[in-house]
Protein backbone atom coordinates (compact mmCIF):
# COMPACT_ATOMS: atom_id res chain seq x y z
CA UNK A 1 0.00 0.00 0.00
CA UNK A 2 1.28 3.41 -0.87
CA UNK A 3 1.71 5.57 2.21
CA UNK A 4 0.12 8.99 2.41
CA UNK A 5 3.19 10.75 3.74
CA UNK A 6 6.94 10.23 3.60
CA UNK A 7 7.13 10.14 7.37
CA UNK A 8 5.63 6.67 7.79
CA UNK A 9 7.98 4.29 9.61
CA UNK A 10 7.78 0.52 9.38
CA UNK A 11 7.73 -1.01 12.84
CA UNK A 12 8.70 -4.54 13.78
CA UNK A 13 8.32 -6.78 16.78
CA UNK A 14 11.86 -8.12 16.67
CA UNK A 15 13.41 -9.29 19.90
CA UNK A 16 15.38 -6.60 21.69
CA UNK A 17 19.14 -6.91 21.74
CA UNK A 18 20.99 -7.08 25.03
CA UNK A 19 21.93 -3.40 24.83
CA UNK A 20 18.33 -2.42 24.25
CA UNK A 21 17.17 -4.61 27.11
CA UNK A 22 19.50 -2.77 29.45
CA UNK A 23 17.46 0.44 28.88
CA UNK A 24 20.35 2.48 30.20
CA UNK A 25 21.72 3.70 26.83
CA UNK A 26 18.23 4.79 25.83
CA UNK A 27 17.67 6.53 29.16
CA UNK A 28 21.02 8.32 28.92
CA UNK A 29 20.15 9.37 25.37
CA UNK A 30 16.86 10.76 26.59
CA UNK A 31 18.58 12.61 29.41
CA UNK A 32 21.00 14.12 26.91
CA UNK A 33 18.04 15.44 24.93
CA UNK A 34 16.31 16.92 27.97
CA UNK A 35 19.45 18.58 29.32
CA UNK A 36 19.94 20.33 25.97
CA UNK A 37 16.43 21.70 26.29
CA UNK A 38 17.28 22.81 29.82
CA UNK A 39 19.73 25.39 28.49
CA UNK A 40 17.79 26.37 25.37
CA UNK A 41 16.26 29.79 24.94
CA UNK A 42 12.78 29.82 26.48
CA UNK A 43 9.83 30.48 24.21
CA UNK A 44 7.58 31.97 26.90
CA UNK A 45 6.34 35.52 26.38
CA UNK A 46 5.77 37.14 29.80
CA UNK A 47 2.45 38.59 28.74
CA UNK A 48 1.56 41.71 30.65
CA UNK A 49 5.15 42.98 30.44
CA UNK A 50 5.95 41.65 26.97
CA UNK A 51 3.46 41.68 24.15
CA UNK A 52 3.80 39.41 21.20
CA UNK A 53 4.22 41.28 17.94
CA UNK A 54 1.09 41.08 15.81
CA UNK A 55 0.99 40.40 12.11
CA UNK A 56 0.77 43.64 10.09
CA UNK A 57 -2.64 42.58 8.78
CA UNK A 58 -4.08 41.83 12.23
CA UNK A 59 -7.72 42.93 12.56
CA UNK A 60 -8.81 43.55 16.13
CA UNK A 61 -10.93 45.92 18.19
CA UNK A 62 -13.00 48.42 16.18
CA UNK A 63 -12.79 52.19 16.37
CA UNK A 64 -15.29 54.86 15.27
CA UNK A 65 -13.13 57.59 13.79
CA UNK A 66 -13.54 61.34 14.08
CA UNK A 67 -12.56 63.73 11.32
CA UNK A 68 -9.77 66.32 11.52
CA UNK A 69 -11.95 68.81 13.39
CA UNK A 70 -13.02 66.21 15.93
CA UNK A 71 -16.55 65.56 14.64
CA UNK A 72 -17.82 61.99 14.41
CA UNK A 73 -17.73 60.68 10.86
CA UNK A 74 -20.51 58.09 11.16
CA UNK A 75 -23.82 59.09 9.60
CA UNK A 76 -25.77 56.00 10.67
CA UNK A 77 -26.39 54.85 7.09
CA UNK A 78 -26.48 51.23 8.30
CA UNK A 79 -24.32 49.78 5.51
CA UNK A 80 -21.92 48.24 8.01
CA UNK A 81 -24.78 46.50 9.81
CA UNK A 82 -26.05 45.17 6.47
CA UNK A 83 -22.61 44.01 5.43
CA UNK A 84 -21.89 42.32 8.74
CA UNK A 85 -22.10 38.52 8.21
CA UNK A 86 -22.36 37.89 11.93
CA UNK A 87 -25.00 40.55 12.56
CA UNK A 88 -22.95 41.98 15.36
CA UNK A 89 -23.74 45.64 14.74
CA UNK A 90 -26.84 47.39 16.12
CA UNK A 91 -27.47 51.09 15.59
CA UNK A 92 -30.05 53.83 16.03
CA UNK A 93 -30.01 57.01 13.93
CA UNK A 94 -30.81 60.51 15.16
CA UNK A 95 -30.99 63.98 13.64
CA UNK A 96 -28.38 66.55 14.51
CA UNK A 97 -29.87 69.62 16.21
CA UNK A 98 -28.64 73.18 16.11
CA UNK A 99 -25.45 73.66 18.06
CA UNK A 100 -24.16 70.14 17.55
CA UNK A 101 -22.30 70.94 14.30
CA UNK A 102 -18.88 70.45 15.89
CA UNK A 103 -19.87 67.05 17.28
CA UNK A 104 -21.28 65.35 14.18
CA UNK A 105 -20.09 65.92 10.64
CA UNK A 106 -23.44 65.55 8.84
CA UNK A 107 -27.10 66.11 9.69
CA UNK A 108 -27.70 62.50 10.66
CA UNK A 109 -25.66 60.59 13.22
CA UNK A 110 -25.72 57.36 15.23
CA UNK A 111 -27.27 57.93 18.63
CA UNK A 112 -26.50 54.33 19.51
CA UNK A 113 -23.84 52.12 17.94
CA UNK A 114 -23.23 48.72 19.55
CA UNK A 115 -20.90 45.97 18.43
CA UNK A 116 -21.26 42.61 20.10
CA UNK A 117 -17.67 41.40 20.28
CA UNK A 118 -18.78 37.84 20.97
CA UNK A 119 -20.65 37.76 17.64
CA UNK A 120 -18.06 39.68 15.65
CA UNK A 121 -15.77 37.54 13.49
CA UNK A 122 -13.36 40.41 12.75
CA UNK A 123 -13.73 39.94 8.98
CA UNK A 124 -13.44 43.66 8.24
CA UNK A 125 -16.48 43.84 5.92
CA UNK A 126 -17.92 46.76 7.95
CA UNK A 127 -14.77 48.70 7.22
CA UNK A 128 -15.04 47.91 3.50
CA UNK A 129 -18.74 48.80 3.41
CA UNK A 130 -18.40 52.16 5.15
CA UNK A 131 -18.76 55.06 2.67
CA UNK A 132 -17.70 57.65 5.23
CA UNK A 133 -14.50 55.94 6.42
CA UNK A 134 -15.90 55.97 9.92
CA UNK A 135 -15.31 52.43 11.19
CA UNK A 136 -11.98 50.63 11.17
CA UNK A 137 -10.54 47.54 12.75
CA UNK A 138 -7.36 48.32 14.67
CA UNK A 139 -4.44 46.24 15.92
CA UNK A 140 -5.75 46.28 19.49
CA UNK A 141 -7.28 43.17 21.08
CA UNK A 142 -10.66 42.93 22.79
CA UNK A 143 -9.95 42.67 26.51
CA UNK A 144 -11.15 39.58 28.32
CA UNK A 145 -13.94 39.74 30.85
CA UNK A 146 -15.95 37.44 33.06
CA UNK A 147 -19.19 39.31 32.29
CA UNK A 148 -21.10 38.81 29.07
CA UNK A 149 -22.33 42.46 29.08
CA UNK A 150 -18.78 43.69 28.90
CA UNK A 151 -18.48 42.36 25.36
CA UNK A 152 -21.19 44.63 23.92
CA UNK A 153 -19.21 47.73 23.10
CA UNK A 154 -21.20 50.93 22.81
CA UNK A 155 -20.27 54.37 21.55
CA UNK A 156 -18.70 55.22 24.90
CA UNK A 157 -15.91 52.77 24.19
CA UNK A 158 -15.88 52.61 20.38
CA UNK A 159 -15.59 56.30 19.47
CA UNK A 160 -12.04 57.50 19.30
CA UNK A 161 -11.19 59.86 22.17
CA UNK A 162 -10.41 63.44 21.16
CA UNK A 163 -7.30 63.57 23.26
CA UNK A 164 -5.49 60.57 21.86
CA UNK A 165 -6.24 59.52 18.32
CA UNK A 166 -5.99 55.85 17.35
CA UNK A 167 -3.62 54.85 14.58
CA UNK A 168 -5.27 52.74 11.90
CA UNK A 169 -2.63 53.17 9.23
CA UNK A 170 -0.51 50.06 9.98
CA UNK A 171 -2.56 47.52 8.01
CA UNK A 172 -3.42 49.96 5.21
CA UNK A 173 0.20 50.99 4.84
CA UNK A 174 1.19 47.31 4.62
CA UNK A 175 -1.45 46.63 1.94
CA UNK A 176 -0.22 49.63 -0.06
CA UNK A 177 3.36 48.33 0.18
CA UNK A 178 2.25 44.91 -1.08
CA UNK A 179 0.31 46.53 -3.91
CA UNK A 180 -3.03 45.17 -2.72
CA UNK A 181 -6.24 47.24 -2.73
Amino acid sequence: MKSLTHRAKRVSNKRMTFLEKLYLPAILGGMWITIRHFFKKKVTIKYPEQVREFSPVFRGLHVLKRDDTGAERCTACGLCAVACPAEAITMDAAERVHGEESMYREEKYASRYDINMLRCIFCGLCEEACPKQAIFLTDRIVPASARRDDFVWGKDRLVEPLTHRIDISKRHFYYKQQGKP
Partner: protein
Amino acid sequence: MSIYLFLIEKTILSLVIFAITLSIAMYSTLAERKFAAFFQDRIGPNRAGPFGLLQPLADGLKFFFKEEFIPASSDKILFVLGPAIAMIMSCMSGAVIPWGKSLIIGGHPVSLQITDLNIGILYIFAVVSFGVYGVILGAWASNNKYALLSAIRASSQMISYEIAMGLALIALVMTTGTLSLSKIVESQAASHWNILLQPLGFLIFLICVFAETNRTPFDLPECEAELIGGYHTEYSSMKLGFYLFAEYINMFVASAVISTLYFGGYDVPFLNVSGNIGVLLGTACLFAKIFGFIFLFMWVRWTVPRFRYDQLMRLGWNGLIPLAILNLLVTGIVLVLN
Protein backbone atom coordinates in the same frame (compact mmCIF):
# COMPACT_ATOMS: atom_id res chain seq x y z
CA MET B 1 31.42 17.24 79.45
CA SER B 2 28.29 17.73 81.50
CA ILE B 3 25.07 16.05 80.45
CA TYR B 4 23.29 19.42 80.12
CA LEU B 5 25.81 20.75 77.66
CA PHE B 6 25.46 17.53 75.70
CA LEU B 7 21.66 17.83 75.66
CA ILE B 8 21.75 21.48 74.56
CA GLU B 9 24.27 20.70 71.84
CA LYS B 10 22.22 17.83 70.45
CA THR B 11 18.94 19.76 70.68
CA ILE B 12 20.37 22.69 68.75
CA LEU B 13 21.89 20.35 66.17
CA SER B 14 18.65 18.43 65.64
CA LEU B 15 16.62 21.65 65.39
CA VAL B 16 19.06 23.07 62.83
CA ILE B 17 18.99 19.89 60.76
CA PHE B 18 15.20 19.76 61.01
CA ALA B 19 14.95 23.35 59.80
CA ILE B 20 17.42 22.76 56.97
CA THR B 21 15.59 19.60 55.91
CA LEU B 22 12.24 21.38 55.84
CA SER B 23 13.49 24.44 54.00
CA ILE B 24 15.32 22.35 51.42
CA ALA B 25 12.20 20.25 50.90
CA MET B 26 10.16 23.45 50.60
CA TYR B 27 12.41 24.91 47.96
CA SER B 28 12.67 21.54 46.20
CA THR B 29 9.01 21.99 45.29
CA LEU B 30 9.85 25.28 43.61
CA ALA B 31 12.98 23.81 42.04
CA GLU B 32 10.95 20.92 40.67
CA ARG B 33 8.49 23.26 38.99
CA LYS B 34 11.25 25.54 37.71
CA PHE B 35 13.32 22.65 36.33
CA ALA B 36 10.26 21.03 34.82
CA ALA B 37 9.65 24.31 33.03
CA PHE B 38 13.25 24.60 31.87
CA PHE B 39 13.21 21.04 30.52
CA GLN B 40 10.09 21.96 28.55
CA ASP B 41 11.45 25.29 27.23
CA ARG B 42 9.23 27.27 29.61
CA ILE B 43 10.07 29.71 32.42
CA GLY B 44 8.05 28.33 35.32
CA PRO B 45 6.52 30.16 38.29
CA ASN B 46 7.89 33.71 38.37
CA ARG B 47 5.07 35.84 39.80
CA ALA B 48 5.37 35.32 43.57
CA GLY B 49 8.43 37.34 44.52
CA PRO B 50 11.62 37.68 42.46
CA PHE B 51 12.04 34.57 40.25
CA GLY B 52 9.03 33.08 42.05
CA LEU B 53 11.04 32.64 45.25
CA LEU B 54 7.98 33.14 47.46
CA GLN B 55 5.99 30.48 45.60
CA PRO B 56 6.57 27.72 48.23
CA LEU B 57 5.29 30.07 50.95
CA ALA B 58 2.22 30.87 48.87
CA ASP B 59 1.62 27.16 48.27
CA GLY B 60 2.00 26.37 51.96
CA LEU B 61 -0.36 29.18 52.92
CA LYS B 62 -2.88 27.91 50.41
CA PHE B 63 -2.69 24.40 51.90
CA PHE B 64 -3.43 25.78 55.36
CA PHE B 65 -6.48 27.71 54.20
CA LYS B 66 -8.05 24.86 52.23
CA GLU B 67 -10.97 22.97 53.71
CA GLU B 68 -9.95 20.10 55.97
CA PHE B 69 -12.11 17.34 54.57
CA ILE B 70 -12.41 13.84 56.04
CA PRO B 71 -14.66 11.47 54.06
CA ALA B 72 -17.65 10.12 56.05
CA SER B 73 -16.83 6.49 55.31
CA SER B 74 -13.19 6.74 56.30
CA ASP B 75 -11.43 5.55 59.43
CA LYS B 76 -10.90 8.90 61.13
CA ILE B 77 -7.92 8.02 63.32
CA LEU B 78 -5.95 6.20 60.65
CA PHE B 79 -6.86 8.90 58.13
CA VAL B 80 -5.02 11.47 60.24
CA LEU B 81 -2.29 9.04 61.25
CA GLY B 82 -1.31 8.28 57.63
CA PRO B 83 0.17 11.66 56.63
CA ALA B 84 1.58 12.09 60.15
CA ILE B 85 3.57 8.84 59.86
CA ALA B 86 4.75 9.71 56.35
CA MET B 87 6.00 13.10 57.54
CA ILE B 88 7.59 11.96 60.82
CA MET B 89 9.37 8.99 59.28
CA SER B 90 10.84 11.04 56.46
CA CYS B 91 12.14 13.62 58.96
CA MET B 92 13.68 10.96 61.22
CA SER B 93 16.20 9.45 58.84
CA GLY B 94 18.39 12.55 58.88
CA ALA B 95 19.46 11.71 62.43
CA VAL B 96 22.28 9.31 61.61
CA ILE B 97 23.75 11.05 58.58
CA PRO B 98 27.16 12.59 59.32
CA TRP B 99 26.80 16.16 58.04
CA GLY B 100 30.46 16.95 58.64
CA LYS B 101 33.55 16.32 60.77
CA SER B 102 33.61 17.60 64.36
CA LEU B 103 33.69 21.37 64.81
CA ILE B 104 36.00 22.63 67.57
CA ILE B 105 33.99 25.12 69.65
CA GLY B 106 35.52 26.46 72.87
CA GLY B 107 38.17 23.77 72.96
CA HIS B 108 35.97 20.71 72.75
CA PRO B 109 34.71 18.91 69.66
CA VAL B 110 31.09 19.20 68.56
CA SER B 111 30.03 16.37 66.28
CA LEU B 112 27.90 17.35 63.27
CA GLN B 113 26.12 14.03 63.42
CA ILE B 114 23.11 13.87 65.72
CA THR B 115 23.87 10.33 66.77
CA ASP B 116 26.59 7.98 65.59
CA LEU B 117 24.74 4.67 65.68
CA ASN B 118 27.01 1.72 65.00
CA ILE B 119 24.18 0.26 62.92
CA GLY B 120 23.33 3.51 61.08
CA ILE B 121 22.53 1.79 57.79
CA LEU B 122 20.07 -0.57 59.46
CA TYR B 123 18.42 2.41 61.18
CA ILE B 124 17.93 4.18 57.85
CA PHE B 125 16.49 1.03 56.35
CA ALA B 126 14.09 0.62 59.24
CA VAL B 127 12.88 4.21 59.08
CA VAL B 128 12.56 4.31 55.30
CA SER B 129 10.53 1.12 55.19
CA PHE B 130 8.36 2.49 57.97
CA GLY B 131 7.54 5.42 55.70
CA VAL B 132 5.45 3.19 53.46
CA TYR B 133 3.12 2.57 56.41
CA GLY B 134 2.03 6.18 56.09
CA VAL B 135 1.01 5.54 52.50
CA ILE B 136 -0.70 2.24 53.25
CA LEU B 137 -2.57 3.43 56.35
CA GLY B 138 -3.74 6.62 54.69
CA ALA B 139 -4.89 4.78 51.60
CA TRP B 140 -6.66 2.06 53.59
CA ALA B 141 -8.36 4.63 55.82
CA SER B 142 -9.63 6.59 52.80
CA ASN B 143 -11.96 3.71 51.92
CA ASN B 144 -11.39 4.39 48.23
CA LYS B 145 -10.62 1.74 45.65
CA TYR B 146 -8.02 3.80 43.82
CA ALA B 147 -6.24 4.62 47.05
CA LEU B 148 -6.26 0.95 48.04
CA LEU B 149 -4.84 -0.11 44.67
CA SER B 150 -2.15 2.48 45.14
CA ALA B 151 -1.35 1.15 48.60
CA ILE B 152 -1.02 -2.38 47.24
CA ARG B 153 1.32 -1.11 44.56
CA ALA B 154 3.36 0.92 47.03
CA SER B 155 3.85 -1.99 49.40
CA SER B 156 4.76 -4.56 46.79
CA GLN B 157 7.09 -2.10 45.07
CA MET B 158 8.71 -1.34 48.42
CA ILE B 159 9.23 -5.04 49.19
CA SER B 160 10.69 -5.95 45.82
CA TYR B 161 13.08 -3.03 45.62
CA GLU B 162 14.22 -3.11 49.22
CA ILE B 163 15.69 -6.58 48.61
CA ALA B 164 17.87 -5.43 45.73
CA MET B 165 18.80 -2.32 47.69
CA GLY B 166 19.81 -4.37 50.70
CA LEU B 167 21.86 -6.77 48.58
CA ALA B 168 23.67 -3.85 46.95
CA LEU B 169 24.38 -2.44 50.39
CA ILE B 170 25.70 -5.74 51.75
CA ALA B 171 28.40 -5.63 49.10
CA LEU B 172 29.24 -2.10 50.24
CA VAL B 173 29.33 -3.17 53.88
CA MET B 174 31.64 -6.04 52.94
CA THR B 175 34.18 -3.65 51.40
CA THR B 176 34.03 -1.08 54.20
CA GLY B 177 33.59 -3.58 57.04
CA THR B 178 31.22 -1.44 59.10
CA LEU B 179 27.54 -0.49 59.42
CA SER B 180 28.25 2.91 60.95
CA LEU B 181 27.74 5.78 58.53
CA SER B 182 30.48 7.94 60.04
CA LYS B 183 33.01 5.09 59.68
CA ILE B 184 31.90 4.54 56.08
CA VAL B 185 32.54 8.20 55.33
CA GLU B 186 35.92 8.12 57.09
CA SER B 187 36.94 5.11 55.03
CA GLN B 188 36.31 7.15 51.88
CA ALA B 189 38.62 10.02 52.88
CA ALA B 190 41.02 11.48 50.29
CA SER B 191 38.83 10.71 47.27
CA HIS B 192 38.74 6.91 47.74
CA TRP B 193 35.02 7.02 47.11
CA ASN B 194 32.95 3.86 47.22
CA ILE B 195 31.58 4.49 43.74
CA LEU B 196 35.03 3.51 42.42
CA LEU B 197 34.87 0.20 44.31
CA GLN B 198 31.18 -0.51 43.73
CA PRO B 199 30.02 1.02 40.42
CA LEU B 200 27.44 -1.70 39.79
CA GLY B 201 26.31 -1.62 43.40
CA PHE B 202 25.85 2.14 43.12
CA LEU B 203 23.74 1.78 39.97
CA ILE B 204 21.48 -0.81 41.62
CA PHE B 205 21.23 1.29 44.76
CA LEU B 206 20.37 4.41 42.74
CA ILE B 207 17.59 2.66 40.81
CA CYS B 208 16.19 1.23 44.03
CA VAL B 209 16.27 4.64 45.68
CA PHE B 210 14.17 5.99 42.82
CA ALA B 211 11.67 3.23 43.53
CA GLU B 212 11.78 3.74 47.31
CA THR B 213 11.09 7.46 47.06
CA ASN B 214 8.23 6.86 44.61
CA ARG B 215 9.76 9.08 41.97
CA THR B 216 9.28 8.73 38.23
CA PRO B 217 9.83 6.27 36.48
CA PHE B 218 8.62 4.27 39.51
CA ASP B 219 5.85 6.58 40.75
CA LEU B 220 3.18 3.93 40.30
CA PRO B 221 1.53 4.54 43.67
CA GLU B 222 0.66 8.10 42.58
CA CYS B 223 0.09 7.56 38.89
CA GLU B 224 -2.32 10.39 38.05
CA ALA B 225 -3.44 8.81 34.80
CA GLU B 226 -4.68 5.52 36.25
CA LEU B 227 -5.25 6.13 39.94
CA ILE B 228 -6.28 9.82 40.05
CA GLY B 229 -3.46 10.52 42.49
CA GLY B 230 -3.31 7.19 44.27
CA TYR B 231 -3.10 7.12 48.01
CA HIS B 232 -3.82 10.84 48.42
CA THR B 233 -6.96 10.84 46.27
CA GLU B 234 -9.19 11.58 49.29
CA TYR B 235 -6.81 13.99 51.00
CA SER B 236 -7.06 17.75 51.06
CA SER B 237 -5.51 20.77 52.75
CA MET B 238 -2.34 20.32 54.80
CA LYS B 239 -2.77 16.55 55.10
CA LEU B 240 -2.26 16.36 51.35
CA GLY B 241 0.54 18.86 51.80
CA PHE B 242 2.22 16.52 54.28
CA TYR B 243 2.18 13.65 51.79
CA LEU B 244 3.61 15.78 49.01
CA PHE B 245 6.12 17.34 51.39
CA ALA B 246 7.20 13.96 52.75
CA GLU B 247 8.10 12.94 49.20
CA TYR B 248 10.47 15.89 48.88
CA ILE B 249 12.00 15.27 52.30
CA ASN B 250 12.51 11.64 51.31
CA MET B 251 14.22 12.82 48.15
CA PHE B 252 16.56 15.05 50.16
CA VAL B 253 17.39 12.32 52.66
CA ALA B 254 17.87 9.76 49.90
CA SER B 255 20.28 12.12 48.16
CA ALA B 256 22.14 12.57 51.44
CA VAL B 257 22.35 8.79 51.92
CA ILE B 258 23.66 8.23 48.38
CA SER B 259 26.26 10.97 48.81
CA THR B 260 27.29 9.53 52.15
CA LEU B 261 27.51 5.91 51.08
CA TYR B 262 29.00 6.22 47.61
CA PHE B 263 30.35 9.75 47.10
CA GLY B 264 32.48 10.30 50.15
CA GLY B 265 29.99 12.25 52.24
CA TYR B 266 31.68 15.43 53.44
CA ASP B 267 34.97 14.52 51.73
CA VAL B 268 36.13 17.40 49.52
CA PRO B 269 37.88 15.95 46.46
CA PHE B 270 41.56 16.88 45.93
CA LEU B 271 41.56 19.39 48.78
CA ASN B 272 42.80 19.13 52.34
CA VAL B 273 41.93 22.08 54.60
CA SER B 274 42.25 21.59 58.36
CA GLY B 275 40.46 23.38 61.19
CA ASN B 276 36.89 24.58 61.45
CA ILE B 277 36.96 26.07 57.94
CA GLY B 278 37.81 22.68 56.53
CA VAL B 279 34.88 21.15 58.43
CA LEU B 280 32.45 23.75 57.08
CA LEU B 281 33.90 23.33 53.59
CA GLY B 282 33.27 19.59 53.89
CA THR B 283 29.66 20.19 54.93
CA ALA B 284 29.19 22.59 52.02
CA CYS B 285 30.63 19.93 49.71
CA LEU B 286 28.19 17.34 51.09
CA PHE B 287 25.31 19.71 50.39
CA ALA B 288 26.61 20.35 46.88
CA LYS B 289 26.57 16.59 46.28
CA ILE B 290 23.05 16.38 47.73
CA PHE B 291 21.81 19.16 45.46
CA GLY B 292 23.42 17.39 42.54
CA PHE B 293 21.46 14.25 43.31
CA ILE B 294 18.22 16.18 43.83
CA PHE B 295 18.80 17.64 40.38
CA LEU B 296 19.35 14.14 39.03
CA PHE B 297 16.04 13.04 40.57
CA MET B 298 14.25 15.88 38.80
CA TRP B 299 16.16 15.42 35.58
CA VAL B 300 15.13 11.76 35.41
CA ARG B 301 11.56 12.63 36.35
CA TRP B 302 11.17 14.93 33.37
CA THR B 303 12.91 12.53 30.99
CA VAL B 304 11.74 8.98 31.60
CA PRO B 305 8.07 7.98 31.38
CA ARG B 306 6.46 5.79 34.02
CA PHE B 307 7.02 2.02 33.93
CA ARG B 308 4.13 -0.36 33.46
CA TYR B 309 3.44 -2.34 36.59
CA ASP B 310 4.57 -5.73 35.24
CA GLN B 311 7.69 -4.08 33.83
CA LEU B 312 8.43 -2.64 37.25
CA MET B 313 8.12 -6.04 38.90
CA ARG B 314 10.15 -7.76 36.18
CA LEU B 315 12.91 -5.19 36.49
CA GLY B 316 12.99 -5.63 40.26
CA TRP B 317 12.89 -9.42 40.52
CA ASN B 318 14.44 -10.55 37.23
CA GLY B 319 16.85 -7.69 36.71
CA LEU B 320 18.08 -5.97 39.83
CA ILE B 321 18.06 -8.82 42.36
CA PRO B 322 20.16 -11.24 40.22
CA LEU B 323 22.50 -8.35 39.37
CA ALA B 324 22.83 -7.47 43.05
CA ILE B 325 23.59 -11.11 43.93
CA LEU B 326 26.20 -11.20 41.15
CA ASN B 327 27.71 -8.00 42.51
CA LEU B 328 27.77 -9.56 45.96
CA LEU B 329 29.52 -12.69 44.65
CA VAL B 330 32.16 -10.77 42.70
CA THR B 331 32.84 -8.50 45.68
CA GLY B 332 33.20 -11.53 47.93
CA ILE B 333 35.57 -13.31 45.57
CA VAL B 334 37.74 -10.21 45.17
CA LEU B 335 37.84 -9.69 48.92
CA VAL B 336 38.86 -13.29 49.53
CA LEU B 337 41.58 -13.20 46.86
CA ASN B 338 43.06 -10.02 48.34
